[in-house]
């Protein structure tokens, strides 16, 4: 039975893609797309990249032009977070007290920035457009920025801030930046680039506490070994966690989850998940899943990671510091992932190779 009214909670990439795919596949019932942020669906990955650098404005991040949603009869309700779902009565309740009925419900509530287990007074986090706008106001040349976390977002913000003329320090819990995700060899190459870019990098750094700076201005991070790292502004960039509060405790018929809340973690996975959910709602066969894909602009490198390096037993690194490739293989020699740095011409072939291998 096809539903008549689909309510999509969460207007990020996944939620938006569910709504538009339903229409693209001919669904003519009601589609309601609810967003917690007061902004139409936008490209979140750009927040830590072009938006922060000032090369793309907020209006240039929209996933679709403003006229798209009404032209597809998709009802956008923005700045209206859903506070509860009544699975028995099949309604969602929004922060304004509105009750919206559904006969299919999609939870695409995404993820929120993970917090430190300690107090971090005055520290920023970066997940939403509002977060990015607040952080951007702090990025004045000559100031000192502290990044807690040297993952993808931390590295992107570090390079952007450094290029804007800030002094930047990065605290990384592991032995090298992105070592856990990409391996020690790539981590070592990246660590060298931090230093070349004049970014202060503290590895194996555990943060014991974060204090207000002298005269209550700025912050000081106190590390496990007693070192004190001061800054005017701090950003906590230690990953995300799924926003699962609305999920039902057990599977419910006609209720779907997709995107980061369902553990997508990558742009291509979230986009594909969403397309697949729209197909399932309509009783159609979903298209095959693409290999995972992550990209990052940092330290003068465009990094592109295709596949899942976590399954690899071995890493081969070749090339030079400014243009290299790391290929990740299982113990039987099969390629499971590759990281390309400043090699756009190899990505498309690699994506196909890994799609066939999957």
């Amino acid at each position, binding site marked *: 039975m096809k539903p008549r009214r689909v309510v999509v909670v969460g207007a990020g990439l996944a939620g938006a893609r569910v709504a*538009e795919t339903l229409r693209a596949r001919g669904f003519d019932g009601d589609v309601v797309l609810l967003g917690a942020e007061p902004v139409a669906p936008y490209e979140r990955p*750009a927040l830590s990249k072009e938006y922060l650098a000032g090369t793309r404005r907020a209006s240039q991040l929209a996933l679709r032009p403003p006229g798209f949603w009404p032209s597809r009869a998709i009802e956008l309700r923005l700045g209206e977070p859903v506070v509860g779902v009544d699975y028995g009565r099949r309604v969602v309740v929004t922060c304004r007290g509105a009750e919206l009925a559904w006969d299919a419900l999609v939870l695409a509530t995404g993820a929120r920035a993970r917090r430190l287990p300690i107090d971090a007074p005055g520290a920023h986090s970066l997940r939403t457009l509002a977060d990015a706008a607040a952080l951007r106001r702090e990025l004045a040349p000559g100031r000192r920025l502290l990044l807690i976390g040297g993952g993808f977002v931390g590295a992107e913000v570090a390079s952007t801030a450094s290029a804007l003329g800030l002094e930047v320090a990065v605290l990384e819990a592991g032995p090298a930046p992105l070592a856990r995700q990409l391996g020690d060899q790539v981590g070592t190459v990246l660590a060298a680039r931090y230093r070349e870019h004049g970014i202060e990098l503290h590895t194996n750094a555990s943060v014991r506490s974060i204090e207000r700076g002298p005269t209550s201005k700025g912050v000081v991070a106190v590390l496990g070994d007693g070192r004190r790292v001061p800054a005017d502004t701090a950003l906590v960039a230690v990953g995300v966690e799924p926003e699962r509060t609305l999920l039902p405790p057990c599977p419910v018929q006609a209720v779907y989850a997709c995107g980061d809340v369902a553990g997508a973690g990558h*742009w*291509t996975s979230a*986009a594909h998940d969403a397309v697949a959910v729209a197909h399932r709602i309509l009783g159609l066969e979903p298209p095959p899943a693409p290999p995972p*894909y992550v990209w990052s602009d940092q330290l003068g490198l465009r990094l592109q990671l295709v596949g899942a390096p976590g399954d690899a037993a071995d890493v081969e690194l070749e090339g030079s510091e400014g243009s290299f490739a790391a290929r990740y293989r299982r113990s039987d020699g099969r390629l499971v992932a590759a990281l390309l740095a400043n090699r*756009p*011409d*190899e990505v498309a072939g690699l994506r196909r190779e890994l799609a066939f291998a999957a």
Partner: protein
Amino acid sequence: MFKIVIDRSLCSGFGACIDAAPLAIELDDEGLARVVVRETDDEAVLDAASACPMGAIEVREVEAA
């Protein structure tokens, strides 16, 4: 008719666009996407724009010339 505009400064060479719309878009020698035909009535270009993780492809509906 659809008009395709590719922002090559955003393009990463991912290549999902050419899988979706091989008649309208190609990858050049540098591995970056460029339009083959500026205007087309091939609806596949909408899928190409959706498939781009970088948001580098803009498709506008225009009046046929």
